[in-house]
C-alpha cells in the first residue's frame, strides 16, 4: 500500500506540486521570518557584547518614567561631577565619561542623509585619552579634535562617497554646521547599526553642540583587578544622582539586546501571523485538491478495496500521500525561506538599512517549527479527503459513474454552516468586547473566531454557489456566448468544489477588505480632524513627517517678513495617575493657528496657562474625574513632579487630537524638559498660502534640512503616508495568501479539465473551436473568482465593523473605489489562474479525448 501511495504520487507530479505550493509558500515565510530575526538578533547581540568588551560597569542616564519606547525618549543626562567621584572609588581602575545624542548628517545637496527610519546617532570620544572604553575603531584618519572636526561611520562614508578631509553638515540643536571629516569609524566591529548614521565629536565639542556643558550621558568604568563587576556596581550605586543608573557591562549589553529583541519579537510575530493566514488558506486549497483527487480515483480506490484493502488502509494511503507532499513541500519551504531571508536582507541593504553583518542564523527551532507546521497542516487538510476515500464502496470498481454520496444533506450543511458562523461571531464578540480577558486570550478568541467565520462561510458557500454563479455568470453568457453559458453551468455543477476554490480566495479578499475599510476610516476621520483643527496657513514638521525637532527652525521662520504667528507644539512624556502620558506644551498664540472645541475654558485658555496651568482632553478628564480647578501631578523624565491645575478641557475632534493628554505652557515645558522639541508648529503669514510665501518660508528653512513646511492638504497627505505605507505592507503580506488561493483555482481547473476530457472531446467533436474551449475555462475561472469576491468582500466589511466597534473606531467608511479595484483584481486573477488549464483544455486531441475513460 505504501508503494501504491508513493507511486501514485510520482504519477501525479504536477498535481502534487500544485498541492504542495501552498505549504511551500507558507513554510518559506515561517522559516524566512525566523532566519531573518534570529540573524539580526544575533548580530546585535555580538555588537553589544563587543561594545562593552573592556568595560565592567556602565553608568547611564535614567528615565524616571521607565524605559522609553518613544522617539523623543533619550534618557536625561546627569551632572558631570559624578565622574571624579567615581574615579576616586577604591575599586575603580579607570572611568571615562561621554555624551550620546541624536544628530543628522547633512549631505552635499543640503538634505539630511537618511537612515531610512534609523536614527542619526552622535557620540563623543576622548581623542587623547584612554581608548580602552571606546567602542569605535578607526578604519581611516584620526579621532576628531576641536570644534571643527568629526568622524563618521564607514557605511555612510562609503554610501555617500565621503573621505577623510571632506566637509559634511551636521544638524543638532541649531542650524546646519559644517565639519571636516577627520576619520571614518566602525562600531562594535560593524560598519552600520541598521542604517543609523553616526557623527562623532571630541568630548568638549559634543557637550557644546548638544548644550550639555557640565553634563554626561554615560560613564564607562573598569574595575581594578580582582574586583567583580557586581561589587563595582554596589560601590557606585550610593554616589548616583536620581537621573543616573548603573549596571554591569554584561547587564547593560543584555538590556540593549533585550530592547532590540523586544521589537524584533513583535516583528517576528507579525510576520508569522501572515504566514499563518497563508497556511490557513493553504488548508482549503489542499483539502479541495485532495478531495477532487479522491473523487477521480474512485475506481482505483474501489479496486484496492476489492483486492482486500481495509478502509483504514485506503485512508492511510491518502494520508501518506499528503504526508509526503507536506514533508517535501516543508523542506523546500524551509530552504526557500533561508533564501527569502537573505533576499530581504539584500533588499534592506539596497534601501540603505544595513543590518549588522554576521553569519546567517539557521536555528534548530526554525527547522523543527517549519517542518512540523508544514507537515501537520498538510495532514490536517488531508483528514477530510482521507475520510471521504473510506466512503468509496468496493462496488465502484465495476459500476460506471458511481458517485460518492454526500455525507450531509443540503439542509444539514446549511444548519452546520450557520451554527459555525453564529459560534464564530459569538467567540469574536467575546474576544473583542470582554475586557476581563488578557490580550493573548482576546487575540486568540478573535483569531479563532475569524478562522471559524471563514470555515462557516466556506461551508455555506456550497449552498450559495448555484445562485451566485447564476448571477455572477450572467455576464459570461452575454460575453462568451455558448462557451460562457457552459462555463456558468460548469461552475454550478459541482458546488462544493467551486465553493472550496472560491472560499480560499475569499479569505485573502476578506482580509484586504478589512484593512482597507479600517484604513479608510482612519484617513477620513484624520482628514476631518485636520479640517477642523488646522486654521493656520502652513505647518512646520520634521522632514520625515513624524520626528520631533528643535524649536530653532520655528524661531527662524518668525524673522520672515509677513509672518504673523509661528506657534509650535512641544511634545514629551510624563507620568500621571500611575501611567505614562503624552505631555504637550503650547504658547498663547497657538489659538490663532489651531482650533479645538472647548468643553470648559476657551480658545484663550492656552494663553492663560501661566506656570502651573494645564488643559486636558475630555476623555482624559472624564477618566480621572478632572474638572476646572482640579489639581494634577505630572512626573517628568528627570524624576521631578509638576503640580498643575486644570484650566481648560477641550473636546478633540474624532480622528486625532493636536495635543497630548495634558498640555502646559511652552515656558513651563522648556524649564522641565532637557531638550524641548516640537512635534509640529503652525505658521500664519500675510497673504496666506501663495507661491511667493511658500518660497520665502522654504528659503528660511535652508539651514534646517530636518524641517519642512506644508500646506494644509500637504500636511494631511504627509501624515497619511504612514497609514499608506502600513496599508501597502499589509497588502503585500496578504497577497501571499491570495496567490495561494489562485493556485487553488488553477489546481481545481486543471483537475476539472482532466476529469472532463471526454466531455471536452465531445464538445470539440460537435464543433466547438479551441478558442471557445479556452474561453469556456476562462469564464469558469472568472466566475469562481467572482464568487470568492462576492463572499470575501462582505465578510471583510462585517469583520471591519466588528473590529471597529471593539477598538472604538472613530468612523466607518467603505472605500468603494478600492473595493471596485478588488473586484477587478479578482477578475484578472481568474483570468491568470485560467491560463494553464485553458491551454491544456485547448490542446486536447479530439479523437483521443473521446476514447478517454
Amino acid at each position, binding site marked *: 500500500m505504501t*508503494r501504491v501511495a508513493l507511486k501514485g504520487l510520482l*504519477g501525479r507530479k504536477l498535481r502534487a506540486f500544485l498541492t504542495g505550493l501552498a505549504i511551500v509558500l507558507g513554510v518559506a515565510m515561517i522559516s524566512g521570518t525566523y532566519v531573518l530575526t534570529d540573524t539580526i538578533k544575533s548580530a546585535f547581540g555580538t555588537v553589544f557584547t563587543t561594545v562593552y568588551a573592556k568595560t565592567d560597569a556602565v553608568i547611564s542616564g535614567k528615565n524616571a518614567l521607565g524605559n522609553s519606547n518613544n522617539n523623543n525618549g533619550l534618557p536625561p543626562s546627569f551632572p558631570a561631577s559624578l565622574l571624579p567621584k567615581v574615579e576616586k572609588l577604591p575599586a575603580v581602575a579607570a572611568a571615562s565619561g561621554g555624551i550620546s545624542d541624536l544628530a543628522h548628517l547633512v549631505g552635499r545637496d543640503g538634505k539630511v542623509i537618511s537612515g531610512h527610519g534609523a536614527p542619526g546617532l552622535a557620540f563623543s570620544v576622548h581623542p587623547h585619552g584612554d581608548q580602552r572604553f571606546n567602542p569605535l575603531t578607526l578604519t581611516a584618519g584620526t579621532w576628531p579634535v576641536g570644534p571643527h572636526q568629526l568622524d563618521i561611520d564607514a557605511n555612510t562614508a562609503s554610501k555617500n562617497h565621503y573621505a577623510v578631509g571632506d566637509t559634511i553638515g551636521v544638524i543638532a540643536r541649531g542650524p546646519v554646521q559644517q565639519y571636516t571629516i577627520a576619520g571614518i569609524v566602525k562600531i562594535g566591529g560593524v560598519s552600520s547599526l541598521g542604517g543609523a548614521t553616526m557623527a562623532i565629536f571630541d568630548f568638549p565639542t559634543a557637550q557644546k553642540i548638544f548644550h550639555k556643558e557640565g553634563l554626561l550621558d554615560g560613564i564607562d568604568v573598569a574595575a581594578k583587578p580582582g574586583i567583580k563587576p557586581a561589587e563595582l556596581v554596589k560601590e557606585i550605586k550610593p554616589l548616583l544622582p536620581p537621573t543616573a543608573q548603573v549596571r554591569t557591562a554584561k547587564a547593560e549589553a543584555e538590556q540593549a539586546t533585550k530592547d532590540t529583541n523586544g521589537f524584533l519579537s513583535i516583528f517576528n510575530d507579525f510576520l508569522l501571523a501572515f504566514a499563518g493566514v497563508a497556511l490557513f488558506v493553504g488548508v482549503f486549497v489542499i483539502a479541495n485538491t485532495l478531495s477532487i483527487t479522491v473523487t477521480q480515483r474512485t475506481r482505483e480506490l474501489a*479496486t484496492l478495496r*476489492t*483486492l482486500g*484493502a481495509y478502509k483504514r488502509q485506503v485512508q492511510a494511503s491518502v494520508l501518506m500521500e499528503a504526508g509526503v507532499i507536506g514533508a517535501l513541500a516543508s523542506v523546500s519551504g524551509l530552504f526557500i525561506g533561508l533564501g527569502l531571508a537573505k533576499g530581504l536582507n539584500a533588499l534592506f541593504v539596497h534601501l540603505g538599512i544595513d543590518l549588522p553583518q554576521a553569519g546567517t542564523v539557521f536555528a534548530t527551532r526554525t527547522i523543527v517549527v517549519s517542518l512540523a507546521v508544514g507537515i501537520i497542516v498538510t495532514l490536517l487538510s488531508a483528514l477530510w479527503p482521507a475520510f471521504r476515500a473510506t466512503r468509496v464502496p468496493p462496488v465502484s470498481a465495476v459500476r460506471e459513474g458511481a458517485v460518492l454520496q454526500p455525507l450531509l444533506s443540503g439542509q444539514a450543511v446549511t444548519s452546520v454552516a450557520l451554527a459555525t458562523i453564529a459560534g464564530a461571531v459569538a467567540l469574536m464578540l467575546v474576544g473583542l468586547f470582554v475586557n476581563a480577558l488578557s490580550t493573548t486570550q482576546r487575540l486568540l478568541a478573535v483569531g479563532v473566531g475569524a478562522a471559524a467565520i471563514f470555515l462557516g462561510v466556506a461551508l455555506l458557500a456550497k449552498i450559495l454557489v448555484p445562485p451566485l454563479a447564476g448571477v455572477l455568470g450572467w455576464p459570461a453568457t452575454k460575453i462568451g456566448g455558448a462557451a460562457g453559458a457552459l462555463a456558468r453551468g460548469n461552475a454550478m455543477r459541482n458546488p462544493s468544489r467551486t465553493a472550496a476554490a472560491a472560499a480560499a480566495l475569499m479569505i485573502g479578499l476578506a482580509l484586504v477588505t478589512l484593512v482597507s475599510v479600517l484604513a479608510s476610516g482612519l484617513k477620513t476621520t484624520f482628514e476631518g480632524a485636520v479640517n477642523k483643527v488646522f486654521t493656520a496657513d502652513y505647518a512646520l514638521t520634521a522632514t520625515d513627517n513624524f520626528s520631533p525637532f528643535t524649536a530653532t527652525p520655528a524661531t527662524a521662520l518668525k524673522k520672515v517678513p509677513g509672518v504673523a504667528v509661528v506657534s509650535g507644539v512641544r511634545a514629551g512624556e510624563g507620568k500621571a495617575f500611575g501611567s505614562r502620558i503624552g505631555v504637550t506644551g503650547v504658547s498663547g498664540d497657538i489659538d490663532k493657528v489651531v482650533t479645538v472645541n472647548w468643553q470648559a475654558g476657551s480658545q484663550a485658555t492656552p494663553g492663560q496657562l501661566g506656570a502651573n496651568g494645564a488643559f486636558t482632553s475630555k476623555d482624559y478628564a472624564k477618566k480621572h474625574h478632572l474638572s476646572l480647578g482640579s489639581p494634577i501631578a505630572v512626573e517628568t523624565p528627570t524624576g521631578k513632579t509638576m503640580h498643575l491645575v486644570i484650566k481648560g478641557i477641550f473636546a478633540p475632534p474624532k480622528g486625532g487630537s493636536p495635543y497630548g493628554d495634558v498640555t502646559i505652557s511652552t515656558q513651563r515645558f522648556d524649564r522641565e524638559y532637557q531638550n524641548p522639541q516640537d512635534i509640529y508648529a503652525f505658521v500664519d503669514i500675510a497673504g496666506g498660502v501663495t507661491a511667493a510665501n511658500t518660497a520665502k518660508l522654504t528659503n528660511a528653512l535652508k539651514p534646517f534640512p530636518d524641517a519642512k513646511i506644508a500646506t494644509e492638504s500637504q500636511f494631511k497627505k504627509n501624515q497619511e503616508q504612514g497609514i499608506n505605507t502600513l496599508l501597502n505592507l499589509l497588502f503585500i503580506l496578504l497577497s501571499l495568501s491570495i496567490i495561494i488561493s489562485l493556485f487553488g483555482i488553477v489546481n481545481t481547473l486543471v483537475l476539472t479539465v482532466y476529469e472532463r476530457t471526454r466531455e471536452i472531446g465531445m464538445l470539440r467533436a460537435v464543433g466547438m473551436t479551441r478558442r471557445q474551449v479556452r474561453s469556456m475555462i476562462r469564464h469558469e475561472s472568472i466566475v469562481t473568482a467572482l464568487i470568492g469576491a462576492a463572499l470575501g468582500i462582505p465578510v471583510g466589511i462585517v469583520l471591519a465593523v466588528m473590529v471597529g466597534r471593539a477598538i472604538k473606531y472613530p468612523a466607518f467608511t467603505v472605500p468603494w473605489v478600492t473595493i471596485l479595484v478588488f473586484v477587478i483584481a479578482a477578475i484578472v486573477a481568474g483570468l491568470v489562474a485560467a491560463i494553464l488549464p485553458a491551454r491544456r483544455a485547448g490542446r486536447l486531441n479530439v479523437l483521443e479525448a473521446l476514447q478517454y475513460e
Partner: protein
Amino acid sequence: MAATEEQPAARTTGDAVVAHDLTRRYGEGETAVDALRGVSLSVRSGELVAVMGPSGSGKSTLMHSLAGLDKPTSGTVEIAGTEITGLSDAMLTRLRREHIGFVFQFFNLLPMLTAEENVVLPLSIAGEKPDTTWLDELLGRTGIAKRRTHRPSELSGGEQQRVAISRALVTKPTILFADEPTGNLDSKTGGEILDLIRSSVDAYGQTIVMVTHEARAAVIADRILFIADGLIVKELAQASTEDVLTVMSSLTS
C-alpha cells in the same frame, strides 16, 4: 504456499458459493426496480460457471451480490462456508483477501505500478510476500513473464487482462469472479483470454463465476446459467454456441 498439485481438498469437493433465494430491489415505492427476484444457485469447487443474460437482466447485480460487493434485499450468500450478507465491512474485506478474486471488464490495473507489482498487489495489501516459484509459474502460464516490468500503459489490452487474471489468481482464491472479461477486447484477443480462463480451471482447479453476454465466452463454462428479469430461467451444461444463441434469442424475443 501450496503448489499446484496440492489444492486443498475442500476445493474439489463441496460448494464454493451457495446463494439462497436472493432478491435485490433498487429504489422505493412506484419507481422501485426488482433486479433480482429470488435466485438460488450453488457453484461447486473447481467449476467454471457462466452467467448469461441480456442487458438489464440482473446478471451484474447477481454477481455483485455473490461477491459481497452489494447487499441483497433478502436471501443469503455463503462463500467458503461463511454467510456473508451480514458481515461488517472489515470482515468482508478479510473474506475478499482470503477467498475472492476479481477480473474486471476494464482491467482496473493501477497505472503507476508495473505488471508484476499489479499482480502481487493483493499480497502486498495483505502484507504478505509472494512465493516466487508460484509467481514464476503463474506468470509463465498467463504469458506475461516477459512483461513484468512494463506499466499498464505499455501493454496491449489482452496483456493487461492477462495481468489482471494473474492478479486474481495469485492468492489462489476460493472463488474468482470475472465480470465481462472479454467485453473490452477484440475477438482474437478475447479468445486467448477465454483459453487462459479455461486453463486456470483445468490446471489449478480454480472455481470461477463469469458474467458475460457473449455466447463464445459462455461456451467455455462447465455450466451456463441464463438469467432474465431477475430470475434464473435456464441452465445448460457444456453447451455449444448454437445452443447458447438459441436460448439467448428466446430470452430477448
